[in-house]
């Protein structure tokens, strides 16, 4: 009898000690802190994780539910990225941000089949902006085609609206990513009458002498760059070497971090790049990041990259994910949401000026609304310029609207082709 009592007491104690499983919101981070692209991957991953740490430490999570970031190292390698997805999807992952166009292309069919949303902010498959075909993929607030259009709009702006006969060269990483803007630029070239030349650079882009000799010879008025990693630093140095005017050299948002300009020193002064969020750390949220995260010793990194372009991008991505989760909680009426609820939250996401101010990020990015048809957001981007003396990026324009008249038919055509290839019936949006 005594033994039975002992066993029952032990069982009761074990049950009480275990208690109910605590709910948590899981946000996987497919990061790359090692390998050739680590300098770009680490600050993004730090910003992403630090924002969720801030929510946990300051607010007790989202809607009272703690968040958990599950980090998995991809090394910017597509196979490893897919392995990371498979290894972490069972943890209740709410949304994946692969931070690689190659990984994104692999994950779109997998995540769609598994019912987990993907958010590819400013990268990935551009036509994922069509929500009728890509139910589980989102690429708000901007994509490459919109980036190409914004760059041309900026050039139009500084040329009084007329760029007929101007020569514009696209220096691009010879990969699916680098080739993304070509169709848009060809369309815009027809519309505005500028002459487009295409100059590919082989991976990784450490040697670009041929390309810059060509640019020196052809003397384009503007050079646009779609680069990543070492390609950016070498291109900026080579542009300085041939004395190409830096203010006429414009990079996409993945060619516009401090990493890209610092190695060239003073020679990089005046270089421009697009961005879909603001720069610097002069926002109230950074006071909280320092107080609750960095100074508390809870930062994902060393804390010395807070406020850099790519840290801010990670922070912004996390903010958009957290706001979508909040929306999902509101729509589903439950705190512990599922990936399907998260998708609904992302599709109903609305970022207003007032909300950004409330979050301590006034004017940090454009205000926008996601809809069932439009998973790509407004596509607005601004132009930042490097001040080599102050070692700072400065925003020199407002957020430009892209030319959707040219882009929308391209998105539609590409999404339709994808739907046909994959036997997808586009859904009706009410």
């Amino acid at each position: 009898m005594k033994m039975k009592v002992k066993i029952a007491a032990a069982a009761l104690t074990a049950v009480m000690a275990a208690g109910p499983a605590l709910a948590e919101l899981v946000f996987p981070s497919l990061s790359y802190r090692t390998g050739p692209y680590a300098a770009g991957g680490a600050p993004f991953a730090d910003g992403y994780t630090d924002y969720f740490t801030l929510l946990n430490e300051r607010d007790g999570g989202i809607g009272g539910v703690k968040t958990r970031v599950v980090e998995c190292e991809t090394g910017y390698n597509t196979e490893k990225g897919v392995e990371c997805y498979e290894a972490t999807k069972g943890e209740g992952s709410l949304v994946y941000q692969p931070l690689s166009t190659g990984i994104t292309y692999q994950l779109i069919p997998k995540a769609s089949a598994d019912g987990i949303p993907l958010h590819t902010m400013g990268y990935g498959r551009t036509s994922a902006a069509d929500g009728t075909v890509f139910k589980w993929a989102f690429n708000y607030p901007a994509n490459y085609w919109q980036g190409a259009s914004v760059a041309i709009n900026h050039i139009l702006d500084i040329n009084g609206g007329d760029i007929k006969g101007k020569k514009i060269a696209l220096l691009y990483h010879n990969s699916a990513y680098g080739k993304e803007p070509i169709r848009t630029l060809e369309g815009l070239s027809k519309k505005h009458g500028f002459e487009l030349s295409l100059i590919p650079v082989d991976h990784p882009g450490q040697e670009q002498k041929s390309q810059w000799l060509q640019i020196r010879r052809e003397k384009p008025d503007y050079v646009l760059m779609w680069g990543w990693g070492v390609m950016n630093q070498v291109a900026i140095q080579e542009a300085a070497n041939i004395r190409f005017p830096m203010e006429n050299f414009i990079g996409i948002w993945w060619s516009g971090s401090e990493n890209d300009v610092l190695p060239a020193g003073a020679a990089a002064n005046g270089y421009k790049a697009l961005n879909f969020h603001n720069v610097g750390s002069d926002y109230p949220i950074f006071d909280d990041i320092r107080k609750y995260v960095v100074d508390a010793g809870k930062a994902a990194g060393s804390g010395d990259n807070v406020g850099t372009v790519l840290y801010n991008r990670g922070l912004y991505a996390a903010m958009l994910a957290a706001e979508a989760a909040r929306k999902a909680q509101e729509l589903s009426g439950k705190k512990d949401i599922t990936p399907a609820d998260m998708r609904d939250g992302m599709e109903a996401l609305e970022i207003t000026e007032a909300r950004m101010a409330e979050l301590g990020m006034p004017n940090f990015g454009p205000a926008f609304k996601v809809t069932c048809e439009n998973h790509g957001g407004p596509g607005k981007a601004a132009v930042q310029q490097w001040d080599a003396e102050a070692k700072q990026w400065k925003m020199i324009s407002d957020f430009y609207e892209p030319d959707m008249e040219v882009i929308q038919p391209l998105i539609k055509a590409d999404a339709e082709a994808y739907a046909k290839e994959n036997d997808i019936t586009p859904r009706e949006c009410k």
Partner: protein
Amino acid sequence: MSDTFFFAMEVALNGLMAGVMYSLVALGFVLIFKASGVFNYAQGVMALFAALTLVGIQNGQIPFAHVINATFGTHLSTFGWNVPSFLAILLTLGVMILFAILVERLVLKHLVNQEPIILFMATIGLAFFLEGLGDLMWGSEIKKLDVGLPQGVSDTIERVTYEWFGYGFFIDKLDIVAALVATVLVIVLTLFSRYTKHGRALRAVADDHQAALSVGISLRFIWVLVWSIAGFVALVAGIMWGTKSGVQFSLSLIALKALPVLMLGGFTSIPGAIVGGLIIGVGEKLFEFFIGPLVGGATENWFAYVLALIFLVFRPQGLFGEKIIERV
């Protein structure tokens, strides 16, 4: 003569200069292969590690600061001083020699008499270890490397060629420095191997390990010596490439540019590394200029390997490599 002709000349000249930069990396591979028959997969990472260490020492960075901070909650980053470039280069050389000693003690010593493929695999492991160590020691952010080397177009060459031909040639000052450094390096290495005791010992080991051992040459010392020299060559390559693109982890990929040079020039010849580099540099640039536009461009990476393969078909040992005859 036409503008196109001069442009082709300019492309070829810049190809020669780019070839010199490839040769600087290839030299390190040749030295180790020649002395020990080991293809050192870690040579590219050694260039990265040397450049990281140089910048770290120059900037007074505390090694392993991130690890120390994460473990003890400190906020260390720098010692608060800057080390002059020349002294920093000497200290980095010291680190590379220490690395060579450790490689010999911890890896090579235990693999004596093993098959070359085993030693090759060991260098693959070494490459990944060294890359991780570099990250832990100095961090993964991109660093500016400035040891006072000039960069940008040479105004003198541009002006003089314009006066002579009516076409101003573009030559990067950094490439001119690289060419001079490579020349000096080859002369010094040749003199060292011909006229010094250790150089002769090195050649003896390269010719026949067993015979060299039988006359009292220490194989272990020779390995330390050759890995130290390869470390020095890696430092030179790291300085040149690091000045060009900033010091970052993709520097280890410069090894990809050295491989076709080795295939073409031969794995055992120092002049072969230089000549191979020049042929690859000019070949890939001219191919890009003439054929690139017809096939959508970006031909340089693959064409370098095609060129090397063509040479291999006719001379499997490379242009200057030793013909290996194995009798069974």
